[in-house]
């Protein structure tokens, strides 16, 4: 009996010590993790917009986050947009709820600051506190509006859609006319050497500079990528040549990856869906914001 007590005691002590070590490691690394994640995201976003080592980010550039939620109340559903608003120089957040026909249903100020708004939990809690009991919310997606000196210059969309294997997570940059500026594949689980080539420049960059109408009708063709086009996509030619070749190909269809036609198609279809829905929704949101004269920061 004494032996068993001894064993249990020692086991408990070891477990507690282990838990303390892990807990300490967790607390120490959590902050760094969040900070690094945020820094990486920002770097990806700026590189999509064309800024980077050679072209520094101007101080007049600002990023505004819009979070879209689906709010379910008994009897109806609403789409809620958490938008940043400016009141007397200070930035706050407002939840603008639209019904399914695109008319404004409600508008409430939400108690959040910029740091908190990045954390899903804080956001959800603040929204629930404002809309009242008996309702459910579900986070849908988030868009970033990029302004330079207050004028809209670009949009950044995040999207996740099925690929050949599981999911493909992307970030797409559009300019004010919704022409694509760049595409970044954030996560995918496709086969290395086959589907995972969607991350490579010679495939991703085919989506650059596509007007929104061209994008909507984009198809994937199983033809070999022309050599010159490939060189331009990978940035191996001089700047002027690259622009000329991209101009030549900007209305053409996407050349599929060798041995990964389905991955290419799923990515293209996913992007089409993302952009189509975004343009439709932004239009409705802008109408409501203008009508109701909501002082958004973008």
């Amino acid at each position: 009996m004494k032996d068993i007590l001894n064993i249990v005691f020692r086991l408990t002590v070891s477990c507690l010590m282990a838990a303390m070590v892990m807990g300490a490691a967790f607390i120490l690394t959590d902050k760094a993790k969040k900070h690094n994640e945020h820094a990486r995201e920002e770097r990806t976003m700026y590189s999509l917009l064309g800024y980077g080592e050679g072209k520094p980010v101007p101080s007049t550039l600002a990023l505004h986050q819009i979070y879209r939620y689906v709010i379910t109340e008994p009897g109806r559903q609403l789409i809620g947009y958490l938008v940043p608003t400016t009141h007397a120089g200070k930035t706050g957040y407002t939840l603008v709820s639209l019904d399914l026909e695109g008319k404004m249903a409600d508008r409430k100020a939400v108690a959040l600051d910029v740091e908190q708004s990045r954390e899903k939990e804080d956001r959800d809690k603040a929204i629930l506190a404002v809309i009242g009991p008996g309702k459910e919310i579900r986070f849908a997606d988030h868009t970033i509006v990029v302004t330079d000196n207050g004028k809209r210059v670009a949009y950044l969309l995040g999207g996740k859609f099925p690929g050949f294997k599981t999911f493909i997570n992307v970030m797409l940059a559009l300019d004010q006319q919704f022409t694509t500026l760049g595409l970044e594949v954030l996560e995918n689980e496709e086969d290395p050497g086959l589907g995972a080539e969607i991350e490579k420049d010679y495939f991703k960059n085919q989506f650059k500079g596509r007007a929104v109408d061209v994008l909507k009708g984009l198809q994937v063709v199983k033809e070999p990528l022309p050599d010159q086009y490939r060189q331009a996509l990978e940035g191996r030619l001089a700047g002027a040549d690259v622009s000329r070749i991209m101009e030549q190909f900007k209305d053409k269809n996407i050349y599929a990856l060798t041995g990964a036609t389905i991955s290419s198609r799923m990515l293209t279809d996913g992007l089409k869906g993302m952009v189509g829905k975004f343009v439709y929704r932004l239009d409705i949101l802008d109408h409501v914001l203008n009508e109701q004269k909501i002082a958004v920061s973008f």
Partner: protein
Amino acid sequence: MKILKIPLSAVFLALLLLPAWLQAADFIESAAFSGKNGIAVAFAVPVDKTAAGEVSRYTVYEENDPDIKLSLASAALGSDGRSLQLLFAEPLNSAKTHVVRVQGLGDGAELNFKVAKPYFGHLFSILVAALLINNFVFTKYLGLCVFFGTSKRKKTAKGMGVVFTIVMVASASMSWLFYQFTLIPFHLDFLQIVVFIGLVSLTVQAVDTILRKVNPVLFNSFGVYLVLVIANCVIIAVPLIMSSLNYNFLETFMLALGAGGGFLLALYLMSSVRERLELAKIPPTFKGLPIAFIVAGQFALAFLGFSGLQLF
């Protein structure tokens, strides 16, 4: 084994009946995707033909995007007045649940029903994925140490495979319970590695003790493999996958079953080949593990062919 058969069959029966239980309205007998851009609906009683043909009566959208209405091209009622075929302008994404609202058909009220792939199909596809498409040994390269150690004879292979499946299912279920009800509510996510491996050890210990007492004969033939289960990477990979994809209980069960079954399949295939290899002429430097690795490589190539398999 027999003890396990009854609850297993009950679970399967429940799964089969699930789609039937999930049907919302009594008026709609069934609704399913048909073709690339269609939905086929079957009504319990005949409905008015002209009313059913009016496209404006229908509102269809994906459950997650209620503000984006899909454009219906045509609605055609079959000759028996009960089967409706809805055709859409663009292909439907059948992986998502769609909601269909109909105004004023039948008894005048608004009809509201969902169209989705059968849940049973979804669960079954997880099983097949873990078994073939993402076979843990040949596609994910886990559990190799144990794999190469126990694949020399068909008998050892079968024993190891069966024991592994049982421990896998048991420990995966317990891991799910622990994860959902203890780790998540208390934000102790980072403890998952310790907790999962602890549960595995506990399960192995429990199965060991139970088997010893209940069926000593069985224990003598299978018991020796229990110790090896802990050294198997797959046993901890399954709970980790479950936690990263946030599966529910049934999905975890299917994943565990598929993982165990896949391991058994891999072991059986490998042992069949290795038994033959013993009679073949192999250069001395290749004897033993090297040739086994090369055979495994060939199997892995073959299993690559299952990529992208979609049954449901």
